[in-house]
């Protein structure tokens, strides 16, 4: 009923994080870090200085990024060293190269379990952080596989591992998922809508919020383009709200009863389609999972109400409550046709 496609597109424009080549500030931050890494590695006096390749990864590379609500932009970079994992039994060693090259660059540089993180602040507030994932390159491993260096400095030995990770190939999988470029655009819009919903509806700390890559992979599995082609003039009209309704419905129907933490409970499992192939939502507790499901159901109900609503203004108000302030609510006069004035006669009734 209410056609809110133009508001959906406006919302998308408001939340879309431009890619590196379109975003000068973030591109500059990334370049500065990479230069610093390059000079830092040389200063470490390793013999020979390790060679590496820089891989773009994360939502920038997949073109699925949304502007953060808390202002803390995150930049993902992969540093793929031309080393064999077998020569470095301790995966912390190459991670420390990266850490040592960058430490002191900003107030805070930290080794995290999956990456090394450089934090930037602007007047005391977090402004950016750059996550550098450290890999052992496939050409240097006898099995031809890529490995991610995992673990922190004081982790138990069994948590310091080289984990097979074909994360870099995920970018290609996502890029080539749809042949039709307009379908691919709708695919990325749907991912961004749900990621912003997630940022708006969940606390960003801890594991309460479903992680963005999980939403992206869920869309890779369950999203289908939604459009109508007019056979007379061959124009195609995309319906993002309907596409989103079908997608959210599909996610909800994939919550399954499983035995977890000693009880039977409904959980959503989304497996990474590349190595290591793990369940992306595994860190969420059962109760966090339940909240996730309830909020998704509430989103689904609001979308259905908005679809049935005749008045575009009211439909957008319902969506604004789910997606936050960036979802535009049109003025009444912008929802209606302009018509010429009426002149009425008197009338009698009985």
């Amino acid at each position, binding site marked *: 009923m209410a056609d809110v496609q133009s508001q959906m597109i406006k919302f998308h424009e408001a939340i879309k994080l431009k890619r590196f080549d379109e975003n000068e500030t973030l591109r500059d931050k990334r370049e500065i870090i990479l230069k610093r890494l390059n000079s830092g590695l040389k200063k470490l006096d390793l013999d020979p200085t390790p060679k590496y390749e820089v891989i773009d990864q994360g939502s920038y590379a997949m073109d699925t990024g949304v502007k953060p609500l808390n202002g803390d932009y995150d930049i993902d970079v992969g540093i793929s060293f031309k080393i064999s994992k077998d020569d470095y039994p301790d995966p912390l060693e190459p991670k420390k190269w990266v850490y040592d090259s960058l430490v002191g660059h900003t107030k805070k540089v930290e080794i995290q379990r999956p990456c090394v993180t450089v934090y930037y602040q602007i007047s005391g507030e977090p402004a950016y952080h750059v996550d550098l994932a450290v890999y052992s390159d496939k050409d240097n491993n006898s099995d031809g596989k890529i490995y991610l260096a995992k673990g922190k400095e004081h982790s138990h030995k069994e948590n310091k591992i080289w984990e097979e990770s074909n994360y870099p190939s995920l970018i290609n999988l996502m890029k080539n998922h749809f042949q039709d470029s307009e379908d691919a655009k709708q695919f990325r819009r749907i991912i961004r809508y749900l990621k912003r919903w997630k940022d708006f509806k969940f606390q960003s700390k801890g594991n309460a919020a479903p992680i963005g890559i999980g939403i992206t992979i869920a869309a890779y599995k369950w999203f289908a383009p939604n459009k109508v082609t007019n056979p007379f003039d061959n124009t195609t009209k995309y319906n993002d709200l309907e596409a989103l309704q079908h997608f959210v419905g599909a996610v909800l129907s994939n919550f399954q009863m499983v035995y977890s933490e000693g009880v039977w409970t409904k959980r959503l499992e989304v497996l990474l389609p590349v190595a290591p192939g793990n369940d992306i939502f595994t860190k969420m507790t059962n109760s966090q999972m339940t909240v996730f499901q309830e909020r998704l159901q509430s989103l689904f109900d609001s979308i259905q109400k908005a679809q049935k609503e005749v008045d575009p203004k009211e439909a957008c108000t319902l969506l604004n409550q789910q997606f936050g302030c960036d979802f535009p609510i049109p003025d009444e*006069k912008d929802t209606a046709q302009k018509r*010429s004035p009426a002149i009425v006669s008197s009338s*009698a009734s*009985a």
Partner: protein
Amino acid sequence: MSSIVFTKIDGGKIKISKKALTSMKKFIQDNDCKKEAGGVLLGRYILNSLDIIIDEITIPMWGDRRKWFGFFRSRRPHQKVIDRLWKESEGTINYLGEWHTHPENTPIPSDIDIRSWKHKLNHDVFDGDSLWFVIIGIKSLRIWELSRNNLSYQLIGESYYSEVENV
């Protein structure tokens, strides 16, 4: 009290907003002291659709003559409201038809009503193909559509107040 939605002859929807519905319901003739009331329906033709929303109504005004069984709506005060809303909304709030009350549970249009509706369809100046007419009964309201393309009047919906309350 929520809004209600009916389907028009052309398949589009017509929604009566909560605001318009609440104002009309104040005039339900559910006791002997309340006289017949009425006014005009005003609202939007929604972009890229066949849908219509009745956003506003006018209520009895100076010059109208109200009786227990009969209502005469004078032209000028209601026309003034039509003109003002049309102007303020940049031409998007338009005249859509009329409403009035009946002191009966399920309203049925009288011969006078039907003659008046047909007269309005033929003599009022308005930018559209149809006009809509609401009668507020005691237990339900009903809505009829009169189209320039189709000379007969057609009942397009009925809504019981008790059902709407629960929405």
